[in-house]
């Protein structure tokens, strides 16, 4: 554990301050470089201001979280509540959950297939709805690549939120629902006044784990879009791999890794802090 996790963490921080090939100490130059100056910087300010992709991997990660987090949480909660009293609900849950179990690499394949211009069902659906002109390879265009991958990741990760909420629902004592039924509360009211507050701790954990998962996402992007076109769907983890192992800039890659880790640590620290308080 020490050799493979602890030592590398410190070494990564160290390497990220060095110039290429472990030369001299260059301070924050690597950070400055990856954040603002690279061909595809992590924050591409001109493009960001104009709303054009690529905006940079860091911004893509943030967009990813902004879209993915609320949708998976809502869908997961809705599914869990909905499927609780449906016949065959466990089978449906198992189906929705399947996305978590298959390798993310395969997930990427599934989505390339769904979005393909000729063979994909998404485009066929568009044609049926009379939106034929919009049909195209969604993963191959600058303005749609990122959003199509995000949509795919929602499909995959909703299963996790759903299962977590289902487990949380089981933890709510039946007496509370009986009491509220006697008091004449409507279903809607029961949901907001009992179910949601009782699931608060579950929500906290789901939100944190979801953000962590979103930040670390790599395989899906690698297979579905290769970060392209032109970095339009690149994310931190993917950018890190590209820099360190395709372009052989270990120092640059390390700097990206440190930025990524700082973000995950922030999220984790928040969770630990909240959990230690009652």
């Amino acid at each position, binding site marked *: *554990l020490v*050799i*493979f*996790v602890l*030592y*590398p*963490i410190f*070494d*990564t921080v160290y390497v990220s301050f060095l110039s290429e090939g472990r030369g001299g100490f260059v301070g924050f130059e690597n950070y400055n470089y990856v954040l603002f100056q690279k061909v595809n910087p992590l924050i591409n300010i001109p493009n960001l201001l104009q709303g054009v992709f690529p905006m940079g991997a860091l911004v893509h990660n943030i967009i990813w979280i902004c879209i993915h987090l609320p949708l998976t949480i809502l869908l997961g909660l809705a599914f869990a509540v909905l*499927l609780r009293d*449906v*016949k*065959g*609900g466990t089978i*449906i849950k*198992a*189906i929705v959950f*399947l996305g978590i*179990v*298959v*390798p993310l*690499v*395969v997930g*990427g394949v*599934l989505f*390339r*297939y*769904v979005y393909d211009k*000729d*063979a994909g*069902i998404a485009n*066929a659906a568009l044609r049926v709805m009379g939106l034929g002109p919009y049909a195209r390879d969604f993963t191959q265009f600058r303005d749609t690549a990122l959003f199509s991958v995000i949509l795919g990741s929602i*499909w995959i990760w909703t299963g996790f939120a759903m*299962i977590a909420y*289902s*487990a*949380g629902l089981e933890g709510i004592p*039946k007496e509370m629902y009986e009491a509220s039924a006697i008091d004449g509360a409507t279903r809607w009211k029961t949901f907001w006044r009992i179910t949601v507050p009782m699931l608060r701790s579950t929500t*906290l*954990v789901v939100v944190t*784990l979801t953000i*962590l998962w979103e*930040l*670390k996402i*790599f*395989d899906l992007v*690698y*297979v579905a879009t290769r970060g392209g076109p032109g970095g339009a769907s690149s994310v*931190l983890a993917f950018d890190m*791999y590209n820099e*360190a192992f395709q372009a052989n800039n*270990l120092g640059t*890659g390390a700097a*990206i*890794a*440190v930025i*990524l*880790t700082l973000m*995950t640590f922030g999220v*984790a620290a928040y969770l630990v802090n909240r959990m230690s308080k009652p």
Partner: protein
Amino acid sequence: LKATIRAFLKRLKTGILVFFNKIKLKAKKPKITLSTVIVHIVAWLIATIWLIPFLGVLVASLRPFSEVQFGWWNLQPFSLNFNNYIDAWTGQTTSPLSTAMLNSLIVTIPATFLPIIVSALAAYSFARFRSRTKDILFLVLVLLQTIPQQMVIVPVFTLFRDLNLINNYVGLILLHTAFGLPWQILFLRNFFSALPIEIEEAALVDGASHFKIFRRIVLPLSLPALASLVSLQFVFVWNDFFFALVTILSPSAKLAPQIIPLLLGRYELNFSLLAAGSVIVMILPVAIYVALQRYYVRGLTAGAVKG
């Protein structure tokens, strides 16, 4: 001693049975109303939406590419065969999946059991013996859980290169072991802490060593938890792409998930072949999930419910 334990387990069992019966009695038969019907329709609609991508890949994998080029739902002409599977398995265009699957197994099996053995021992000491340094170590573990793979990969890569561990499964197995330890120790510690300490005390009085107690009492009692760990870790390691991508470079040594991007091809996309490969690669994790579903889900939600 044996009699004491047996009696205790019996009481535990009856207690659980009584508890479940109570729950059963409380469940009433619901009336069928319009809203129930709507809810059911919506629920199965969801299932369909979630099933369609899988269905597409499955159908495409069983038919020649020329037939599914314009959608797997076009049923004319229609022919079913396993040619794509044979092509992917024997490696017509890339490294054969047969060796890759075997490689994956060679990595995954030790990388599943090694960390679990280590973390079981560590978790037991965390759960039963207290000390100041342990508390700090414990906090470190919690934080380590969140470290992304990307954070360690640069030094690990240089280390492996210097030690000649690139393309070597030993390195990859150790890497997975190290990465699996934090969450497994946490998971097992919580489980061990919840076990009744009375049995162990009884055994201790009877002169059993700590290790013997661990082996004869604690491990058998925690079989469900271990099943959760095995299923989760197996699927994690099997599905891992990043570590393998960086540390296994030689084509013949590649693991199963690594073959998938290769099947994408550089210029033209043979979806049928790709689909067949995908099905082969995902069949094992899916099988594990189906077989150990209860343990898998429980393991995954253990952290989320406790809060």
